[in-house]
């Protein structure tokens, strides 16, 4: 087990007039190499939850174990934890600051105290992971890039510390459909090739559900549903709609078919799956 949360609670501005309970009794186990979608309505506590994973926030009560270590006991080397868990914030392009893309991506490895030749190797590797050409990009300024490219550089700057787990907060926000597909397929490649565990945080089921293997649905600071995407769309469709999260269009279509009396499987995620399911049922 890689991450283990035990009865985690978190309250913002404890003891102040604006006190708000953001996370309530969260129990969660995440294994090495999992591919998870964390989905919930805006303001449900997703971002707050993931900031607990690498010790940026300290829980009001409850425990977090990463790789068997309780990260909130005194003397825990949080730098080590943050190296294991790469957290990519929403709009990560806003964190870029170096003069060249090379320096930007080298920031993390440099802070780890690696020798220069290893750093260069990691920069090459990270740029390759996000599909950017080293020769073309390394010496450019990160501020001269397009939005999509900036986001990839920011992603590469986390990948260069070689985390065992990658957490991405809304990685596709504000990207055009092609940029979104590119980022998602790069993340999938990283997961497949390096066995990196991935948590994709999003408020949008569409696309994310196709990619991940397990979905956690959050609502008002609690994880209310935990299961495979197929399972969730098949059995918990009404719950999802109730908490304000729509279904992917194709899944909704299947649910409507079922409501009309057609006996189709509703746990489909893509148009292709839906097509073959409908064809299968038509032939009978």
């Amino acid at each position, binding site marked *: 087990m890689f991450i283990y949360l035990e009865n985690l609670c978190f309250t913002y501005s404890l003891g102040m007039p604006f006190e708000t309970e953001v996370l309530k009794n969260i129990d969660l186990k995440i294994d090495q190499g999992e591919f998870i979608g964390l989905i919930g309505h805006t303001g449900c506590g997703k971002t707050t939850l993931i*900031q607990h994973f690498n010790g*940026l926030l300290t829980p009001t009560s409850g425990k977090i174990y990463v790789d068997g270590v309780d990260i909130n006991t005194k003397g825990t080397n949080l730098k080590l934890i943050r*190296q294991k868990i790469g957290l990519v914030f929403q709009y990560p392009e*806003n*964190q870029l*600051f170096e003069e060249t893309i090379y320096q930007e991506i080298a*920031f993390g490895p440099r*802070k780890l105290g690696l020798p220069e030749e290893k750093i260069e190797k990691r920069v090459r590797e990270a740029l390759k992971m996000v599909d950017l050409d080293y020769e073309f990009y390394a010496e450019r300024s990160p501020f001269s890039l397009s939005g999509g490219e900036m986001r990839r550089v920011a992603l590469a*700057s986390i990948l260069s510390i070689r985390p065992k787990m990658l957490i991405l907060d809304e990685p596709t926000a504000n990207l055009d459909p092609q940029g979104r597909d590119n980022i998602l397929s790069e993340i999938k490649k990283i997961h497949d090739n390096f066995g990196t565990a991935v948590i994709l945080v999003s408020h949008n089921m569409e696309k994310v559900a196709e990619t991940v293997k397990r979905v956690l649905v959050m609502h008002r600071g609690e994880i209310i549903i935990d299961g495979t995407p197929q399972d969730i769309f098949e059995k918990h469709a009404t719950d999802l709609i109730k908490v304000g999260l729509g279904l992917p269009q194709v899944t909704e279509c299947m649910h409507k078919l079922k409501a009309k009396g057609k006996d189709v499987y509703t746990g489909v995620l893509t148009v292709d799956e839906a097509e073959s399911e409908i064809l299968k049922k038509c032939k009978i």
Partner: protein
Amino acid sequence: MRILRNISFGQYIPRDSLVHSLDPRIKILSCLAIIIALFLIVKFSGYLILGSYILISIIISKVHPKYVFRGLRPILFIIIFTLIIHLFMTEGKVIYQVGFLKITQEGLIKGLLISFRLFILILTTSLLTLATSPISLTDGIERLLSIIKFTGIPAHEIAMMMTIALRFIPTLLEETEKIMKAQISRGADFESGNIFNRAKNLIPILIPLFVSAFRRADELAIAMEAKCYRGGEGRTHYRELKINQIDILTLSLTMVIAIIVSIMF
């Protein structure tokens, strides 16, 4: 990150009270009168009177004293420092001596007086900002400044700048916190190292912060132009400030107290 949460600057606490409902101009002028009086007083009894006046105002304002006194925390060091300096550095009748350090009676009195002065000063201004929303505060400043507009002071522009600055303090703090967290996640360390390293470690925060602040300023300027903003000339106000009898009574009371204590004590 802890530090960013503790800034109480301009943290308006909405309550339904007499102090809150006063005209901002009245509150600013009253504070000014008290501050001037504070610097004229030379006796403890004067501070006692002004201090209790402020304490009564705090009670009337329904703002929990906890928040008012929190404003004192940052300058507590300065108060203690001045007290110590006065204790040891004033010539006069020695009342206590350790080695070459001696405490004099004059020093004690002077130090305490100045401490009281700073103490009440901060309480007064804290109460003003806690019980007046930033918007009405700048409104008040704008109207007060426009009285002396003939001197060439751009009252509206100053007020607008203050409004925008106040409006963006929380935004920038939030942004700073976000960037800090992002850089910490990338391996940055803001808590260890000597002072030079720490200063150097701020670069990954400052550059993104400036980039986004400039971008925000740009966007705001465009948005303001899109709404046909043309400066203060001929501009009307959504909230018209009106002075009523309670306002006049409050200001008179404050003025009378301020004048009496500055003359008599």
